């Protein structure tokens, strides 16, 4: 009985988190937990999102990782090593300055870049999946480089549950 109440509470929390998260998006499977928990708890998804940093940014039309991106992914890898029950979907995104299909392909490249780097840092490939949203889900809305730079991103969205 107390167990089912706990499960319900967890489901409610997860639902709330995924509804209010502007940065993530639907994950490929399992339960999205992006942003859940307390940012002060180093084992929480909220800590991962805010303290570790859940995203890396890319220059125009590129999918290579610069030093800052690699540093962020190093920390993501460390967190994922320490928190082995989590899986992650890496979402690749592009800014609006491109055609729809090309940007889907470019987002796939970016997501794959981040994924391959995490794998190179020892994260099991079967814990990581990728999805491209192309230019469909910008987080910054202006049509200038300051916003575009934030939209050209790969976001690591945590999930729990069985591997994909």
């Amino acid at each position, binding site marked *: 009985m107390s167990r089912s109440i706990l499960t319900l509470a967890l489901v409610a929390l997860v639902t709330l988190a995924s509804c209010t998260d502007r940065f993530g998006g639907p994950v*490929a499977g399992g339960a999205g937990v992006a942003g859940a928990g307390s940012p002060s708890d180093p084992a929480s998804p909220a800590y991962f999102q805010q303290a570790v940093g859940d995203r890396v940014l890319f220059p125009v039309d590129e999918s290579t990782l610069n030093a800052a991106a690699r540093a962020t992914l190093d920390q993501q890898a460390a967190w994922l090593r320490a928190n082995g029950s989590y899986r992650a979907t890496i979402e690749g995104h592009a800014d609006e300055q491109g*055609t729809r*299909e*090309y940007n*889907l392909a470019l987002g796939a490249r970016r997501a794959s870049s981040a994924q391959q780097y995490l794998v190179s840092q020892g994260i099991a490939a079967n814990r990581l999946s990728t999805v491209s949203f192309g230019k469909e889900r910008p987080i910054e809305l202006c049509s200038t480089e300051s916003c575009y730079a934030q939209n050209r991103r790969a976001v690591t969205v945590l999930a729990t549950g069985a591997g994909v």
Partner: protein
Amino acid sequence: MIKRLFVAALAALLAVLSWGAWAQDGPLRIEITEGVIEPLPIAVAPFLAEAGTAQALAADITAVVRADLEGSGLFRAISPNAFISPITSFDSPVQYADWKAINAQGLVTGTVSVSGGSITVQFRLFDVFSEVPLGEGLQFAGGGDAWRRLAHKVADEVYTRITGEGGYFDSRVVFVAETGPKDARQKRLAVMDYDGANVSYLTDSSTLVLAPRISNDGSQVLYTSYDTGVPRINLLDTRTLTRRPLSNQPDAMSFSPRFSPDGTTVLFSLSQGGNTDLYRQALSGGTPERLTQAPSIETAPGYSPDGSRIVFESDRSGSQQIYIMPAAGGEPQRISFGPGRYGSPVWSPRGDLIAFTKQNQGRFHIGVMRTDGSEERLLTASFLDEGPTWSPNGRVVMFTRETAGAGGAPALYSVDITGRNLKRVPTPGAASDPAWSPLLE
């Protein structure tokens, strides 16, 4: 003095109109070239209702015929207020002098009758200055809800008789209807007449959908859906609205589908390990066949109208460019060489041109080029134009134009392949990714 100058200028203008835009000698004819600058004046007489009950319907049908012809940019419908003698009987001899007097080059007359649930429209077209009918009178019939289609068929016939080319008015457009803010846009598939009438929705907005494509017979729509969380190709039956994922899709992201001309095969892009290549698969299932093997992005594939070749975009040269290869696969030939990037190529139904999106110096353009890449012509320029789709006769392209900024939203526009007659296609709200059907049966 001023008045005399004005008269002289007017005479010069009239001379240009008469001799430049349309030939006064010989039969009524528009040669559609870049030289068509002034639309041809045409009188569409109010269609006669054969019974009192059809009055309103006859007026509606007349209005649609007029709107179609004017909307093409090739005709100017003379205001009925200028008509000297009204048409009171479909079969009475035409008083050509009265129509010459208002400089009507062509005259369309018609009747509308309603019997039970069925509408019958008859029409005739006259070459006023040659004083002869242009072709035989014709009759179209359809169910009560088909009156707009009957009007479009009349307009298509008039267009075809005067231009010598196929029409495009009796056609539909599948598109993505969009609502909500830019960072949480909701999208659903919709379909409408080419002119924006009769909108209906094919999916709800519970899942992100992109870039629908309609089969040549109009019975099926391929599109990209995120209903599983990743982009996958779905197939929708336009009559039953039943949907299913394309069978046997590899476990990866797939998008950018397009039908083969015979509707049996789908071309699409598949992204695996960050690399996007082209695949082909029978619509009925079967094993996907890989058409390109390159570390670069290959996407936006489409067939030539005869099915023998495939046009697509690739960044194998280091930037997005257009290529053509044999439909069975094989060495692609690059055809785009101008400054900037080229994407979303689509082969004209006439076979002669490729329409594309071009991105150069921060601007987007819709353009056309010949299939060997020559004679590139940019038709539009804006903050963001993309995704051309061809009218059934290969004379017009429709595309998505998106405005800039946080409040930016997409809308559908169309433009002649001459670059003239750019206009917004009315939709109930924001809209993107149009796919224009062939002429309906």
